[in-house]
């Protein structure tokens, strides 16, 4: 494994007041855009939390509090035409790719105008036009699928990259292994971000694997591995960018381990009583938004007013999104029956060969 990611960012809790995030070539504008997306992610999830507490959310609510930088920073490193396969904690990556807050809200509220028309919930929706493949709940399963997206791209000579995510827990699935090995041996343009956030539901990483760093698994597939401070959005961006560029240039897959922390329970109902409070303390100091703000302010890339302005604008936008989502209707019940199969095209699938005539019992067994 290579751990070039280590050079990006800093995991030290006692980092100096002016945050030293990873070096980047990103312009001020793009850094502010990145900030907006990072903030947007947290604020959308905040609104979802409100809706949850108002009993408007159907089913559970899963958020990425404290780890938004991983999803946002990595997706920001992609180009138009690239593909992502986001998991439940990767709302940020979907927002980067143009998903509207109302779409997510309507998904969570099971509304008829949601991207799935109410057929599925939460972030489980996809849209190839925006380069988003929906996962299934079974962890790991989207890895071979995204490897297949990358394989197709390679076969088609399209210069695109497929990127997906997996939690520390999800790395224990057979599909993680089969998918990553397949991607490696077929040398396809694929990037896998392993989000190491300390827990899989209540299970700490030490019960999930005997290794400390997931990136150690890259060597098992003969692919480059990178370890990155997942709460340094610039580091995540840069390390992903490097992997994406390598993949696009034909250099095959990369496994990136992003160290971060889940600052809430597994879902909204889970009080995370099993997480030692010190861990929350420690990681609160490393909040990715706070750090990015310190970086922007400290380097004079933005003033507090700039940031406040961005936040206020997002807020206004979200008011409208929430209103829209709340006002939207539930789906018609009968829609349940629709859409299981893709119908044949109008012109059919080809010339139908007439069946050979049956043997005729009344005719001495000869075809009639």
């Amino acid at each position, binding site marked *: 494994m290579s751990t070039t990611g280590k050079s990006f960012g800093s995991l030290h809790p006692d980092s100096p007041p002016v945050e030293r995030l990873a070096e980047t070539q990103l312009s001020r504008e793009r850094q502010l855009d990145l900030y907006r997306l990072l903030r947007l992610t947290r604020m959308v999830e905040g609104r979802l939390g409100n809706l949850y507490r108002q009993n408007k959310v159907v089913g559970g609510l899963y958020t990425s509090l404290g780890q938004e930088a991983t999803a946002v920073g990595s997706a920001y490193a992609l180009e138009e035409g690239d593909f992502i396969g986001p998991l439940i904690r990767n709302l940020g990556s979907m927002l980067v790719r143009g998903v509207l807050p109302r779409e997510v809200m309507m998904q969570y509220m099971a*509304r008829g105008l949601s991207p799935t028309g*109410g057929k599925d919930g939460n972030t489980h929706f996809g849209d190839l036009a925006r380069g988003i493949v929906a996962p299934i709940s*079974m962890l*790991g399963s989207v890895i071979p699928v995204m490897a297949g997206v990358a394989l197709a791209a390679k076969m088609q000579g399209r210069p695109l990259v497929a990127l997906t995510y997996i939690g520390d827990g999800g790395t224990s699935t*057979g599909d993680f292994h089969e998918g990553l090995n397949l991607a490696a041996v077929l040398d396809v343009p694929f990037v896998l971000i392993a989000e190491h956030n300390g827990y899989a539901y*209540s*299970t700490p990483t030490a019960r999930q694997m005997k290794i400390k760093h997931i990136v150690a698994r890259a060597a098992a597939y003969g692919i480059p591995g990178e370890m990155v401070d997942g709460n340094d959005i610039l580091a995540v961006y840069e390390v992903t960018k490097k992997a994406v560029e390598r993949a696009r240039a034909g250099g095959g897959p990369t496994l990136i381990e992003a160290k971060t922390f889940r600052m809430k329970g597994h879902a909204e109902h889970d009080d995370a009583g099993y997480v030692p409070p010190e861990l929350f303390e420690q990681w609160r100091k490393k909040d990715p938004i706070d750090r990015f703000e310190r970086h922007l302010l400290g380097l004079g890339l933005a003033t507090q007013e700039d940031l406040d302005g961005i936040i206020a604008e997002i807020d206004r936008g979200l008011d409208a999104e929430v209103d829209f989502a709340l006002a939207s209707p539930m*789906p018609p019940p009968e829609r*349940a029956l629709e859409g*299981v199969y893709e119908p044949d095209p109008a012109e059919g699938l080809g010339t139908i060969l007439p069946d050979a005539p049956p043997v005729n019992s009344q005719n001495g067994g000869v075809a009639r």
Partner: protein
Amino acid sequence: MTTTTSQTYLEAIRQGMWDEMEQDERVFLLGQDVGTYGGAFRVTAGFLDHFGPKRVIDTPISESGMVGAAIGASMMGLRPIVEMQFIDFISCAYNQIINFAATCRYRWGQNVPIVVRGPSGGNIHGSAFHSQNPESYFQHTPGLKIVAPSSAVDAKGLIRAAIRDLNPVLFFEHKYLYRRIKEEVPAGDWIVPIGKARLARTGRDLSIITYGAMLHVALDAAARLEADGIEIEVLDLRTIKPLDQDAILATAQKTHRVLVLTEEQTTGSVAGEVAARVGELAFAWLDAPVTRFCCPDTPVPFSPTMEEFYLPNAEKLVAKVRDLLRY
């Protein structure tokens, strides 16, 4: 005189496992978050403290690995209980269950006494991957037993029987019932035998054969129909494999009209198997076609409006029964 305790369906399962673990040190648990957290539905809350980390094992997210390990441990004389966090994830252990666990006894005489259990079923707006009823995935596989209780008493007696059984048993708990059902459950060391259906209601006009959460839909519908003097017999299968064919045929012979009610997509359902058997073996007694009332052939939809449309309920069932009585 037996004492009883008021217990939910969930508590009964929990208690059944607890009692077996107290009595038999070979029994142990493995699954995701079953220890510290006590399981996503808290079915195993308190087990870790009481039985210790050797017998209550939090595993990685490896359904196939978990079931495989259980198979191996069972060969060594232990009695593993594997929890699927949601039963839908059993699809990831399909090969271990149908090919490894189910065939060892037949192929080389080695029995595999394991239990694979977990929350199944819909009506909680869990959508396609947290609402499945996977019994039909497995009903075809010789060597497996499949259990799906509808009541707290049965849940307790059947989980104990499942743990003691010498074969691999899939134990499907209906999560909609977990905390919605509360019953007086007798104390003491007893089981409900695998392979025996229970007559839940007697009647002479029509038989509803069902199991799990749908049992309650059937009883509700039967009570409504009673107002019109219609007598519905309700048979609770309790065990899906092996089916209690005698009980199935007996009720068919009694009422001459059979409706099979299950919370599954219709095609390839357990209901289909029951219907096929009734149609073949009770043909002479039938006054009307054996009718299935299941879910439509779609994944489980998420939105409550659609899921309600998708699931059988008492109102729809009453209409189906009336139709069938008019046949």
